[in-house]
């Protein structure tokens, strides 16, 4: 059993880490929440009922762990998700920056300005490449809500990207 839990971790942890990192934008915090995710997962692995794939199930736990973290800090109400974290000193360490000075970092920045629902759906659909059904499962939404939010999120993202382009000349 232990062997397989370890394998589970090795197989999935990078993907979970990436998902969490894109939301919290701090390396150490992302590691902590990744640990929390796997800890919770191992604890309730017996209740994993194959309703979703293992990786989707883990994403859902990761989402809850991240959400709990933000909720504890009451960031949700006061800053909107993530925005406050971007200015955090940790976030500007060089290794935390992804790809500097190109579109990806622009997108990275633009994402952080969006509201949490929009970030959620974009990260899952576009970066994790989850299906609509999987996204609905992870976020606890209906598939219709995923689709409509996705459309709105995309529009908001586009607007933000163009706005940033305008500002930077």
């Amino acid at each position, binding site marked *: 059993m232990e062997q397989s839990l370890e394998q589970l971790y090795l197989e999935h942890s990078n993907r979970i880490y990436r998902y969490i990192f894109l939301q919290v934008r701090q390396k150490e915090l992302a590691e902590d929440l990744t640990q929390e995710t796997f*800890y919770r997962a191992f*604890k309730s692995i017996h209740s994993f009922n194959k309703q979703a794939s293992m990786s989707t199930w883990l994403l859902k736990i990761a989402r809850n762990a991240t959400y709990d973290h933000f909720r504890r800090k009451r960031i949700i109400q006061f800053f909107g998700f993530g925005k406050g974290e971007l200015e955090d000193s940790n976030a500007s360490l060089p290794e935390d920056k992804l790809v500097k000075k190109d579109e990806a970092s622009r997108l990275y920045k633009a994402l952080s300005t969006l509201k949490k629902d929009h970030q959620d759906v974009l990260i899952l659909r576009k970066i994790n490449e989850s299906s609509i059904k999987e996204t609905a499962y992870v976020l606890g939404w209906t598939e219709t809500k995923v689709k409509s939010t996705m459309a709105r999120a995309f529009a908001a993202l586009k607007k933000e990207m163009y706005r940033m382009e305008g500002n930077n000349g």
Partner: protein
Amino acid sequence: MNDFDGEFNKLKDVKRSEDARMISLKKVMARSNKKKFNILPLVFSSFTVFAVGLFLMMTVKEDTPVVESGKTIIDAQTVHEVPIVELTPRMFTVEYEVDNMDRGDHDYETLGTGRRIAVDPGVLDFHRGDVIYFTTPEYSNGNSGLNLPEHYISRVVALPGEKIEIKKGQIFIDDKKLKSFYSYPTVRGRNKEEYLKTVNPENSAMNEEDFEENMESIVVSKGSVFVIGDQWWRSIDSRHFGLLSLSKVEGKVIGYRMEQ
């Protein structure tokens, strides 16, 4: 919809150091193993607590209701541990993700844990201290991020015909001080003194004043109850939306469903 695909692809390469990855693995395994030994006694003890509680409820509740003296009402029989129960056919189970009942153990926050909450819709009359599951009444405090779930869980604090008042963070029922673990504000189960000792007042979520909430008296009308979530500052309850009509109550929360 294909715009920005390239940029999204680049974001897929989030760097993570191999060391950090392995350290995390060790930590998770250590933490999981440590708990392995603890889980069994934990389950046993909570089950014992439940069994004793059940026994007390059956025997004591009928004969000696909540103790009432001149100045105080004591509810010593409601326990804050969440029992683990076997489902009966009429019960249903739900998931819950709000931390308004958190007493330090993520109480009732089951989402993502695999646990489920057992609700009994057949209970028709409620006692003080009962935890209930209900349709969240319409409520807005002007904060668009409030985002209340469709259903909510809280504890019954005052019953029809009673007058409830909160003075300096203490509940009074019919002008009598209510003594119980839920009659004053807590943060993850810690009371004012315990909480303020552990935090830096500069950036803590709660300061002394927040623990000294006041609410003018209100009389609970027939067909309704007054509910408060155990973690006051995280809870939207009768202090905000007023009396809860019993027509909104879906059932009594019995505990966590025993895992098969």
